């Protein structure tokens, strides 16, 4: 009987209505971007191999990266890497007790978004 009552407890797990604090967003993004980076790894290795094969393959890679779709993929990949890089740096600094205080931790979480955004804009300007 007690068990049944416990089972009827309200469960609130609507992920779209739980407001994750900004540090939580940075943290979950670190995981998601990390997992995606692993999935991108085979493509990166393949591109490295092709680019070193012969001049024609090298030119082909450069041409493909120059198309609108290629640039889009490149920019998304750069964002994923930059976000993982900056949130990683944030975690490393927290490891040595830097930025653990609440307001500092919130500010640094926002800074990782600003940093990765700036890297994407800079890369876009260089393309």
């Amino acid at each position, binding site marked *: 009987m007690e068990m049944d009552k416990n089972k009827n407890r309200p469960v609130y797990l609507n992920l779209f209505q739980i407001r994750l604090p900004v540090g939580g967003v940075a943290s979950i993004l670190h995981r998601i971007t990390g*997992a995606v980076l692993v999935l991108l790894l085979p493509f990166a*290795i393949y591109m490295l*191999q092709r680019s070193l094969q012969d001049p024609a393959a090298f030119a082909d890679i450069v041409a493909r990266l120059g198309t609108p779709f290629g640039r889009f993929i490149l920019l998304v990949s750069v964002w994923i890497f930059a976000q993982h890089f900056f949130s990683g740096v944030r975690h490393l600094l927290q490891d040595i007790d830097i930025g653990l205080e609440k307001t500092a931790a919130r500010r640094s979480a926002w800074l990782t978004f600003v940093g990765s955004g700036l890297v994407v804009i800079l890369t876009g300007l260089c393309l």
Partner: protein
Amino acid sequence: MPVRHLRPTSSAHAGLVEWLLQRVSSLYMAGFVVYLILRFAASPVSDYAAWKSWFAGGVVRLACALFILSLLVHAWVGLRSIYMDYLHPLWLRFGISLLTAFGLLALGLWSAEILLTVNS
């Protein structure tokens, strides 16, 4: 998580090696990536010959090999913690971990092939 919060739950050093490998590999990779950005920003590579001659250098290939090794270790520890948090049935966690391990090993061997055959 801060160092001082790390508490052993089983043996005194369980997980500490992984924790450390994750940090050390990230430091090497971060340094290498910053080096790459600065290097190619300073003198961009525009053609195949320049790209290949840069990559064929012994120090560059050694640094790349260390980078790949760090990457695989880093990926393994990172994915492992994701699996431990989200994959609860033991058979599923074991199966996915096994696939991941073989996949990462294959990527490592493939990279080794590229690094070793670039001059041939």
